[in-house]
Structure formats: structure tokens, C-alpha cells
């Protein structure tokens, strides 16, 4: 690209510092809004994933299953569905005693009625209601298995909540992105309109649309790029504050932050060309 365009963009920014600085502040505020929203969405997704990780299937074993049969079953279930933990009858009884709190309530029970069980932490691919339902039916078919439980209704609700959160994130994200797009477009439109006289003179002297537009586009990209970095810094500050004072929260992962920056630049590019094409047409042929 011609060095002249960069010199022009630099000169333009220096000579219209007030306008440029105002534009950067407005854009920083708009981009910080979307950056903050992205961070909240990311943290909400992490929370849902963590909840999902706790989804497990409990396989109750028949009393007559021998240790060898049990071990063979554990091996098969591990291969097919995920990590398996064995809970013996005694361990189950002990857990129940802890849960009940008052041991005297269980005094009347002569024999441990609880079955031994296998707890399966399912592979990520099996964490949908449909997959869990299918896995449950398959496991029920094993002769060593008495019963299978996995909290079908809870899993379904969690799954729907996760889907809703994703769709909501996309919808609200789109609305915020469009709003930010308008702010970027109008801010750049105003900066170009403020230099309409210059645009008109250049056009009369035979400048092509590209010659007129490039310095403005470079300036717009610079302003939005700077605003995006400031917005990320503001969002980082917010994350540190919330994490220290209110709720555990993580900052955007590097890929998200980079994506945010790249999309902001692309938005500036698009908005600048759109604003310029309108101004160039309005100054006449």
C-alpha cells in the first residue's frame, strides 16, 4: 500500500485530534459493552459445562455378581461409556449413614439392603439426553445389572438450559454487534462529513474513490483498533474486580480476545467504506 495513505491518515488524525479522541472514547465504550457481554457469556458457558461434567450414570449391580464378573463389567463399561468407579455395598451403607445424620434411625435395619453400584462419568459425546437414554438402555441389558439411574429429567433440563444460553448469547450478541456497528458507522460518518470539503476538492482534482477513501479507512481502523484494545483492558479490569470482590470469574480466552479484536477491525473497515461511499456519492459525480 502507498506510504502516502499512511502519512495522510496520520496527519488527519493529528490535525483532528479532538474528533479522533472523541471517536476513540465512544468506540471504546461501545466495544467494552460487547466485550463485557462476551466475558459474561463465556463464564456462563463454563458454569454450564461444569454442571454437565457432574452428570453421571449409576449402575446398580445384582447381589450375586462375583468379583470377576464385576471386574469384567467395569472393563467393558470403561471402554464403552467412560471412567467407572466401584461403590461396594458397605461404602453405600456408610454413605447413607452419613447422609441420615442420626444413626439411631437405621438401628432397626438388620441387613444392608443397598446394592453395590458402579458410577460412570460419561464421555463428553454421551452427555446429551438422547445419548444418555440410549446408553442407559444398553447397560440395563447386561445380566449383571439390576437397575440404571441417571436423573433423566434433570439432564434434559440442563441440556435445554445450555442450548437456551447458547442461543441467547448469539441473539443478544448479534443485537449488541449491530448496535456497535451503527455506532462505528455513525462515528466514522461524522468524521468524514467533517472533512467533506477536502473530499470534494480531491474529487474535483481527479482523485479516485480509493485515493480519497484509503486514508480515512486507515484512520478508522487505527481508531477502532485502539478502542478495541482499550475495551479489552477495561473488560480485564472488570474481571479482576468481580473476581476479587464478588464472584469467581475468568477473562476471555486468547482466541476469543483475538477474535474480538479482528471482528472490531473488520467492522471498522466495512463501516468506513460504507460511510465513505455515501459521502463520495453525496459530493456529486
Amino acid at each position, binding site marked *: 500500500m*502507498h*506510504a*502516502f495513505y499512511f502519512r495522510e491518515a496520520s*496527519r488527519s488524525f493529528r*490535525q483532528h485530534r479532538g474528533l479522533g479522541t472523541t471517536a476513540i472514547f465512544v468506540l471504546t465504550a461501545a466495544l467494552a459493552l460487547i466485550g463485557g457481554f462476551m466475558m459474561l457469556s463465556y463464564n456462563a458457558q463454563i458454569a454450564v459445562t461444569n454442571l454437565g461434567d457432574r452428570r453421571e450414570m449409576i449402575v446398580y449391580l445384582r447381589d450375586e455378581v462375583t468379583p470377576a464378573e464385576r471386574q469384567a463389567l467395569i472393563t467393558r463399561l470403561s471402554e464403552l461409556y467412560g471412567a467407572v468407579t466401584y461403590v461396594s455395598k458397605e461404602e453405600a451403607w456408610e454413605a447413607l449413614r452419613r447422609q441420615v445424620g442420626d444413626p439411631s434411625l437405621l438401628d432397626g435395619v438388620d441387613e444392608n439392603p443397598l446394592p453395590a453400584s458402579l458410577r460412570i462419568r460419561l464421555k463428553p459425546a454421551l452427555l446429551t439426553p438422547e445419548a444418555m437414554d440410549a446408553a442407559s438402555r444398553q447397560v440395563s441389558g447386561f445380566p449383571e445389572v439390576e437397575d440404571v439411574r441417571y436423573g433423566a429429567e434433570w439432564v434434559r433440563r440442563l441440556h435445554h438450559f445450555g442450548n437456551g444460553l447458547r442461543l441467547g448469547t448469539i441473539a443478544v450478541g448479534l443485537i449488541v454487534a449491530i448496535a456497535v456497528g451503527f455506532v462505528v458507522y455513525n462515528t466514522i460518518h461524522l468524521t468524514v462529513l467533517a472533512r467533506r470539503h*477536502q473530499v470534494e*476538492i*480531491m*474529487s*474535483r*482534482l*481527479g*482523485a*479516485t*474513490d480509493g*485515493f480519497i477513501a484509503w486514508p480515512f479507512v486507515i484512520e478508522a481502523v487505527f481508531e477502532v483498533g485502539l478502542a478495541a484494545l482499550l475495551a479489552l483492558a477495561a473488560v480485564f479490569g472488570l474481571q479482576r474486580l468481580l473476581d476479587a470482590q464478588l464472584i469467581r470469574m475468568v477473562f476471555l480466552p486468547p482466541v476469543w480476545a483475538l477474535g474480538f479484536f479482528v471482528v472490531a477491525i473488520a467492522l471498522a473497515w466495512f463501516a468506513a467504506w460504507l460511510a465513505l461511499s455515501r459521502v463520495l456519492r453525496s459530493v*456529486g*459525480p
Partner: protein
Amino acid sequence: MITFDQVSKRFAGRLVLEDVSWHMDEGECVVFLGDTGAGKTTLLRLITHEMRPTSGAVTVGTFRSGRLKRSQRALLRRTLGIIYEDFRLLADRSVFENVALPVRIAGRFADDEVIPRVLFALEEVGMHQKQEAFPAELSAGERQRVAIARAIVHRPAAILADEPTGALEPKSADEVLTLLRRIHDEGAALLLVTTRREVAEALPARVIEIRDGRLAGAATGATAAAGADPAPSTADAAPPAPGA
């Protein structure tokens, strides 16, 4: 070089130019003389393709009016040098940068080639001492001289001047006319529009009078100077025959 073939231009129902035909050769000097609102500026804007004729055709070099692309229009304007009554200099750039603009727009020259061209143009108009100044620091006459330097710096095929002395005091106006005459003598075609008969008289030009959007007749600068008033006509205003 520039040809108008039965050109009419209508604005909001009003006929601003009516059936105008004329031709200008390379290196020629033509002055359009007429009152305010006679259609002179419209004529210039048709040449620069800022507007299209309602009917007829305007040809500038190889560019013919019609649906020129924006890039073609830009190319056409680069073959012309334009001087405005109100100078139209960029206030936030120095004299040097204002004059350098058409060379940069042409895009054919490296930075080290731009500088000697601009300095040469500034020397021609006597403004090389003020190359660092900004337009606001100059007198009206100086600003017009900078505008002339900007119009000639890229060696255009023709220079168009829209009332170039309109905003100047008599002394500055004389200096500008002398300058334009010299530039024309060096080979540039010059087309000037004015309301002032003394401007037409000061140039070795073919003078074409324009009244209410119609060409009233053609005369040489000398004829115009003698106060001749050719019969009003819409007939083609052709250049004088060789030896006439």
C-alpha cells in the same frame, strides 16, 4: 480537444444551456464572456463531468459524455487543471502540499520526483518562497497563484479557470492574468469563463459571448477589446480560420 455538440442542460425545468455547439483545439485560448447566470459555470461543470448534458454530447479528449464510470471521470479530471474563483485550497495543508496534491493523485511519481515538480510550479507562479505557508497566511492574490500552480503542476492538456480574478483586487487580478497568459504562451490550452470584459481583453483569446444559455457569437480578444458586438446566434462557435 474539447467539443460541445448541440448540448442542452436543463435544471428543474429551466433551460440553462440551449443547443450549444463549439470546439476548442489543443493549445488554444478561449474565453466565455457572459453575465452571472448565463450558463458559464454549467459549461465548465459539463467539461469536468460534474454533470451530464440533458441532450447533446460533450467530448474532452477521448472522453465522451454519457455514463462514464467514476474511475474514468477521475482520469478525465486528471487531464485538466482547474482554477476556481474561491481557490479551493485545503486549509490544513501547506502551499507545497496543496500544489503536490494533483501529482500525488496522478500516482505516477515517487516522492523524490514530486518535490522538483512542485518547486518548479511554485517558481513559475512566484510562490516558491512561501511553500511552507498555509493558505490562511496568504493574501487572496497569493492564494490564487497557489491555485494556478496546483492547476499546472501535473502539466494538464487544458486549464479551466472559473472567474479566476473574481475575488481579487485589480493589481492581483493583473498579476494573475499575466501569469495565465504566460502559461498559455508556453503551450497550455486555456479556457476561462468570466463576467468581466477586461479579463477577455487581457488574453490573446477567442472570446465567445454567452447569454441566457445560448452562444451569442465569437470574436477574437482584439475584436472584443474593440467593443464589437457580434449578432446573437446559436450558430456553432468555431475557431477562427487559419490566417483570419
